Every structure is written in C-alpha cells, then in structure tokens.
C-alpha cells in the first residue's frame, strides 16, 4: 500500500516519463534518425554519395536507408566529388532536397569549384530564380592516425564563400537537430561531423525537434572566462573545465555550433559577462575559424574585453601519421588549462 504522497510522486514521475520520454543512441545513429525522419516527411529529400547505399556509408550514417527508400533515392555515385556535388546542385535547382555525403570531408576539396562557384552563387546570380536547398555533409577533423589527407578541416577554406551556411555538430542531440534543420533550410548548408565523435552516446527526446542553425549552445555557464569551441574540441574543453573547477576557476563554455554566421548574440552576452575570451578550435592557426572569430569579437565587443583574446588552434602542419606527433598537433586539455590560468591572471 502506497501512501498518498508516494502515489503523488509516482504520478509525477510517470507524467514526466510520458511527456519527456527519451531513447538512447549513438551520434551516427542520431544523424541517421534525423535523415530518415526527414526523408519520410518530405519525398523530395534524397541522398547521394559514395557507398551510401547498401554499404550504408563509411560511418554508417545512411545505414538501412537504401533498403527503405530504394536505391534511386539513396544513390551510390561514381567516384567524382566535383560531379556528384554538381549533380546535387542541379537536382536542388529543380526542386529536390539532396543530402550530399563526402566520404571524408577532405575529398570535398575536389568539389570546391561546384561549392564556391555554383552552390554559393547561383541563387544570387540568377536573381533569386533558382534556390539550392542542398546539404553537404561528411566526417572531417583529425582522427586517429588517418594520415594528412584524411585529417582535413575544411571549415577554414569554406568560411569565405558567400551564400552558404556552415554548422558543426558535437552531440547526438544537436547532430539530429542540425541535420533536420539543415535539410529544411532553403539555403545550402555544410554540416561538419567529426570522425571521432560518431560513437558518442546520449539520451535524446522521442519527439520531433530541430536545432536552430544560427544558434550557439551554452554547455556550461560560468563567470570567469568565456571559452568558445566547437566539434571535438568541446570535449577537450570540458575535460579541462573539470581541472579548472578543481583549481577554483568558473569557466563558461559555449559550443558555437554555427560557424557561418557566428551567433554573436550569445557570444556577445557571454563576453559582456566574463570579459575574457579563449577560443579553442581544431582547425589550423592560419586563416581558421578562430581568426575570423577574433576579428568579429574585437570589432563588436572590444570595450568589454579585459585582456586580448586568446586562441588555441592546431599547428600549421599537415597532420602526421605517428600517434604521438598527431596528438601534439591538436589542442590538448593541459594547454587549455594553462591558457585559462594565463588569461585570468
């Protein structure tokens, strides 16, 4: 026999369970779920890329889709990135909503011509007559000993292209949300996934949701310093944050998510609060996202800064194969701790 109080509690838990029911999955499954739901919702959504069909994609993001939707809607293409991206652009201009997968983001450098000269431009040069609602996605970033050509970070190269949007996912929750939002967007969106994050596990809501493409995510509110990061570096930052908390610091961690355009509203509010900024990114020092972010913050919030903005990026070297060398080309938590200590002196 339960007491009335126990009945009340169990009632609350039951309601919460029903209202906020969740399921657990890995990041690549979250991407797949988002893609599948959008394909069910809108028959114009289609997928094209190398080995996306029966093979299910190099990281299994398109697993099972070919079986469910047929191999015309989930198209295995010959090996020609510039061409299947061009194909996606052509299909988008005639009303389809293609999701183009680069087997590894680095290969999309071959598609630069189509992405820059056509994808970003044709809506503008046609006077608005033709829209290109395409999503270009793929795994990128520095992995575990994949070699230099498979460790590219293309966000630096693509950030100048007018007409495109860029987002980077980092958790199963925002992966699914950003995938869905990107597909529904009328603009061409490049969705950056990271090779080492595909097996992250999280409980995500059962109901339909999307994430705002232009919004940054507050990971950990704090008072002392604003740490801006994205993709895999978020996890290095959070690791460093644990150490920092133990040392008595209170860092505010923001996953900027939207690489183009920057969410200067969220970032600005944070800068106004903490007055110190550290950027932790995985792309190279020269011409990276951090460089643009420093410029944007300095232009808009210079008066609120108590110290120059610090930026930790990967070394300006091709990523070496040897594990030990590879580790030191990217930013490690220890460096982040040191940087915060320096900033907060």
């Amino acid at each position, binding site marked *: 026999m339960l007491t009335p109080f126990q009945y009340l509690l169990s009632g609350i838990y039951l309601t919460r369970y029903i209202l906020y029911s969740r399921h657990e999955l890995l990041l690549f499954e979250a991407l797949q779920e988002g893609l599948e739901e959008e394909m069910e919702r809108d028959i114009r959504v289609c997928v094209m890329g190398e080995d996306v069909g029966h093979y299910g994609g190099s990281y299994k993001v398109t697993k099972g889709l070919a079986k469910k939707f047929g191999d015309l809607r989930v198209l295995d293409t010959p090996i020609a990135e510039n*061409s299947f991206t061009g*194909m996606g652009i052509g299909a988008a*201009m005639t009303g389809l909503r293609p999701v183009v997968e680069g087997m590894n983001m680095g290969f999309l450098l071959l598609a630069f011509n189509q992405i820059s000269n056509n994808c970003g431009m*044709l809506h503008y*040069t046609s006077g608005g*007559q033709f829209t290109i609602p395409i999503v270009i996605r793929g795994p990128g970033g520095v992995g575990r000993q994949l070699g230099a050509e498979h460790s590219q970070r293309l966000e630096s190269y693509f950030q100048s292209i007018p007409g495109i949007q860029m987002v980077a996912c980092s958790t199963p929750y925002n992966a699914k949300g950003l995938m869905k939002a990107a597909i529904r967007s009328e603009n061409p969106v490049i969705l950056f996934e990271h090779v080492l994050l595909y097996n992250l596990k999280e409980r995500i809501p059962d109901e339909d949701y999307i994430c705002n493409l232009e919004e940054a995510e507050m990971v950990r509110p704090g008072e002392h310093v604003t740490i801006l990061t994205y993709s895999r570096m978020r996890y290095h930052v959070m690791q460093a944050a644990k150490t920092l908390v133990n040392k008595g610091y209170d860092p505010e961690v923001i996953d900027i998510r939207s690489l183009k355009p920057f969410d200067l509203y969220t970032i600005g509010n944070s800068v106004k609060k903490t007055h110190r900024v550290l950027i932790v990114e995985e792309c190279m020092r020269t011409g990276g996202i951090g460089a643009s972010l420093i410029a944007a913050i300095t232009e808009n919030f210079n008066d609120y800064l108590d110290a120059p903005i610090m930026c930790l990026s990967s070394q300006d070297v091709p990523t070496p194969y040897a594990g030990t060398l590879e580790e030191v080309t990217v930013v490690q938590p220890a460096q982040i701790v040191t940087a915060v200590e320096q900033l907060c002196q």
Partner: protein
Amino acid sequence: MANWLRISSRTVANHIKKRMNKEFMGGAVHVNQSSGLWWGLNRGGPVSDRNRRHMDPLAWNRATLLCVQRFKTTLAEKQHDSFLSSDSDDDNQSVDFPGGKVSYTSEMSFISESSQTRVPCYRVLEDDGDLISDCDFQQVSKEDAVKMYSNMVTLQIMDNIFYEAQRQGRISFYLTSAGEEAISIASAAALSEQDIILPQYREPGVLLWRGFTLQEFADQCFGNKADYGKGRQMPIHYGSKKHNFFTISSPIATQLPQAAGIAYSLKMDNKKACVVSYIGDGGTSEGDFHAGLNFAAVMEAPVIFFCRNNGWAISTNVSEQFRSDGIVVKGRAYGIRSIRVDGNDALAVYSAVSAAREMAINEQRPILIEALTYRVGHHSTSDDSTKYRQLDEIVYWKKARNPVNRFRNWVQNIGWWSEQQETQLRNSVRKQLLEAIQVAEKTEKPPLSELFTDVYDHPPSNLEEQEKHLRETVTRHPKDYPSDISV
C-alpha cells in the same frame, strides 16, 4: 517478365556481335544506313531488338524497375550465362570477371588509337541548301521552318548589334554565336518547353526560340533593374526559370554534372522531359565532362549532351585540345549512344535532336551529339582571333559555309520565304534591337538593396549590417559614388 525480355534480346544482340566480332572491338564505327545496327529513326529499316526493348510499357514504372534491376544485376548475369552455355558454338573460350563474361584470345593485338575512317557526319542539306535525295530526316512544318529561319536571322543581327555596342563602350562584354546559329535554333526547335536547358554560353538562340524578347536580352547585357538576374551576372550570362533555361555560370563544364542531377530529378518525378546540356570542344577536356557523362550513363539519365565542336577554344585549335576523332567517339567509352552531325545544317540538327530526345525520354538513357561547325566570330569581345588564325579561313566559313544562307536557300526554294520577307525581317529586327538597347541603357540599374538580397533566403544580420554601413557611406559621400545608384 522484364528479365526474360532482357535475356532474349541480349542473346540476339550477342549473336550479332559474334558475327561481327572484330569490327565491334574497335574497328570502324560506321553509322551505315543499311546496316542492322543503325540506331536512327525507325523508318522501316532493321532496328536491333535492343532498341525496341525499352519501348515496352513495363519500363514506365521506372523507379521500381530500376530498383529491381539494380538488385538483380548479378542474378541476371548468371541466368544469362546458363542460357548461353547451352549453345554449342558459343563461349567455350570465355572468362568470368567482375563486369561480366569476356571472351579471350591468344593473339596479342592492341586496339588501334584511331579507326581507319573517321565517323561520318550526318547531313541533310547540300552546301547550297538543296535537300540531299533519299535522305532520312524529320519533316519540319512551314510554320516551324519560317520561325527557325527568322530566329536565325534575328540571332545574327542581335549578335552584330550587341557586338558593336560593346565596341562603342555601351556594354562591357559580348560573345557572338556567329556561324553556329543553326545549332542553337534548330536544336531548340526540336525540343519541348518542358525540356530543361543547361547552356555553356554560346546558345542564346535557344532562349530566343523559347520567346525571350530582344528587350530581355538587352536588359541582361546592360545589367539594369529589369534584368532577371538583377544585374549580378556579366553580359550574355542569361537565365530564365520560366523558359527552363538555367542561369549561365562562367566556369566551363560545371553544367554537365548538374545536368545529370536535373535528369535524376526528372526521373524521380517521372516526368516526360529531358535535359539538354551544351558544351564546346574545349570544354570536353574538363574533368567534369568525363564525370558528367559517366554519371549520366550509370544513372540512365535522360540527358542530351550537345557538343558544339567549332574548332577553336579561344586560341586553342582542336588538334591541341584532344587526339581522338572529335568528341563523338568518346560516347562509346562511357556507354553512351552518340552521333556526329553537320552543325551548319539546320535540318540535320533538328532531326538528330528530335531522335535523340525520343530515345533519351523513352529509353531513359543519355545521348551524345557532336555538331561539327566553325566559330566564325572571335571567342568574345576580349580577343582578336585574326591573331591566331588565318583571315581567309574565317572569310571562307563566313561566306561559303554560312548556315543561315544555307537554310535560307532551302526555305526559299520550297516557296516558304521570299526576298521581300527577308528585307522586311532584317529591317524590323534591326529597328527593334536599336530601340531595345536605347531603352535598356536608360533603365535604372538595380538599387543598393539588391546587392545583399538572394545571398541567402533572408539576409542574415551581418549582411544587414554591411548594407546599413554602405548605405550610410554612400549617403554621406554622394560625390564619390556613381549618381545612378539608387540607395
């Protein structure tokens, strides 16, 4: 049932193949009217079963059939093999590899880099405009023939006047289609309004056929507020969604893979239309040419790849562009049916494109058409072609091999056109063009606000900020900015 049809037609084709084994391997590819392998118009001549097969009604359920075919590809291969092995004289010397069975030989021979004779060129009219007796061609109605001819004349005059306008400094750039009028007009005439055009840049004739007015052409060249492109692209980079003519993008050959994508879209929607993508001889050297054709073939996409082989890519002659027998032979390399046509013969172009369109849509396959022609004008207003080619060569093609004169002779000989109509047309077009240019010149340029729209669906905050800054600067320093910019 579809599989049975495939097997039986394959066997038939295989038997034919065996009888002309050596020729098939890479010898002369004669498009001979009397041979059983002529894929042309079905005019009572023998047509291979392979051509007929796809006309069956089952093929309409394309999406599912494609699914079924793809899953069963290897299965059908195996069935086919067992069927064949029952034949006594066949295949006792063949070897299995991914991609299928292939017979082997112990005689080492290399396929020659070129065949003994070049692929012949399909033409219907003699050089002087007389119809070749006993030829195969698609009949044109009087209305269409007159429209085709008038458009060719209009295109000629338009090219002359706009070229002059550029020389006078009134527009910044122009590119003529001199010598290639038959190609753009006649190919457009053979298509329907629903067929989607992906041009290179020397095909304004297609837009003209589809009803783009002289004023609309002028507006784009002057980049004024009435331009559909809102003044954002350089002259001759026309684009019109309502005419199914996709906005021209300067990089060469990027439209070829896009054509495969649009055809893919048409397939998904099960539309009875095709895509026509134009390219020049030079453009076929681009990587996108290879991949665009390869994709279209693999995807069984209804695309017509129309190559205007006009002999010159700016200053690069075709002999420096490729070493193959033109472009037509490349079709086979991708598994694409192809034809070589006399590009200065409007009727031949019309017939070939009509046939190609039917095949592309009914059989869901790409077709490659190489139209041989000559670029009479300079590449554009940015070069002087007499610097890299002989003047008498240009004059020869302009006078003796002119496609407009040739077609005029034909239309006049049947009595559908007269000298009087000729003078009337030329005068009227010239007058209209001069008026259009005047109007276009006087029309306002697009306002400042159009600088930042259409980059995205809605201008993001950073662009709004940039616009605000720019507006303030222009308002504060009006003397430093052109007076005809409306803020």
